[in-house]
């Protein structure tokens, strides 16, 4: 099966094709021992699953659950910017199926408002600098967000190194 998106008919197990093609290597059976488990992944997936099942009216004003595609896109965003030891963000629902990913650390704040897939408003602010919040309209490239996270975490870790 085309694992990328499942759109190919070749080798699909969901309906008989014109001849069943089998790949010789079962890719699903591989075990990657070099990948470190992510600190954030389990919590994020649990939270997104929960938000997709919120009851209508969860906010007291008739809001519906987070949009399923938006939640999946949010996970892809985090997969693109978070290393295995990035702290898990807070994730909050919006009033229209949207959601916001937030980090609030001693050194500053990041908020990613995911309005829909490919439609993200990013905001970043550091504490103790003269620089006010930095904003960015983002679609699929989140390299800048990764830099923001790195800045926040580097500043967080610096005092520990100094003490050692």
């Amino acid at each position: 099966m085309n694992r990328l998106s499942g759109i190919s008919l070749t080798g699909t197990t969901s309906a008989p094709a014109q001849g069943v093609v089998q790949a010789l290597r079962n890719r699903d059976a591989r075990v990657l021992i070099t990948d470190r488990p992510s600190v954030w992944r389990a919590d994020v997936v649990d939270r997104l699953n929960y938000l997709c099942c919120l009851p209508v009216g969860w906010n007291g004003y008739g809001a519906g659950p987070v949009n399923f595609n938006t939640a999946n896109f949010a996970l892809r965003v985090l997969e693109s910017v978070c290393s295995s030891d990035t702290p898990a963000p807070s994730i909050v629902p919006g009033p229209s199926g949207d959601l916001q990913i937030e980090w609030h650390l001693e050194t500053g704040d990041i908020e990613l408002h995911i309005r829909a897939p490919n439609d993200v408003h990013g905001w970043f602010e550091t504490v103790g600098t003269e620089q006010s919040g930095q904003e960015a309209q983002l679609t699929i490239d989140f390299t800048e967000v990764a830099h923001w996270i790195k800045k926040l975490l580097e500043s967080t870790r610096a005092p520990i190194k100094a003490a050692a």
Partner: protein
Amino acid sequence: MPASVRFFDPDIEASIGSGHKESTIEPVQRAPVIRPPDLPEFGKPPLNEVVLGVQFDAPAGYQQIRAGEVWKLYSGDFPQVQELPPLPPSFETFGPQASLFSFGPINGPMHNRFWFTSTTGDEIIQFQNDRLLHNWRKVGDQSNEYPRFDTIVTKFLSEARSLEEFFSSITPQTLRIRQCELSYVNHIKDCSIEKIKVSDWLKVLLFPSFEPDDFALSFRKTIRSSDGGPIGRLTCESSTAVEPSGRHFISLTLTARGVPEQQSIASALEFLARGRDVIVNTFAEVTTDSAHRVWERTA
């Protein structure tokens, strides 16, 4: 950046004018699909399947119970229908950690997927409430020829327009397309020998002193806009595979997936045309000159 692709269907424009006063759909101008003059061309490519399609926001007011009405849009040419599990959402994103693998899709309510199949079985429309895809494939004795990209994409344009009109009849709206994808699935076979030799066909794999029993490889390449920013990815996957008869062959799948410049059907078709160019160029680059002779490369 290849020339833009524009499409015009006078029949659709006429129907829009007469029946859809409230419609926000705009007619699309068409010229023949512009093929870059230096794009490699093959008389007998080893294509086994081509898929193209779009992923869009779930339309307002549409419920799964109306899937039968969607089928009626296409049932003249696609009279058979099957119901299947849905395709999960897929998105290309970029950042320093973006990896080929994405684990653990989010659970949630999903619309089933429907296959509307042509009478010959070689073409299929795949529909769910956030996807529309058109597949062509080899069938039967494998003698059905690939009808070429411009034929398939013109059909897809008509199918997408019909779907957009249908959704607009529920409540005025246009398809908001978030992602496009195009896949070319090649089955490279050498009927003259029992076991295919990888390095005869793939330039990227050379084994000077031995022939592997089997292999699997994948790589990705960013597709960029004219200003250098990423707009999508080309993904290549290849491995050895075996037919029901026991004969080995090489599967080579090239997929272009990414974001159209606008959320419209016209912009989606521009991305698909760009994806075609990237796929064909990459296919020519990763396969050997001797393979090109077998496949009758003409350009």
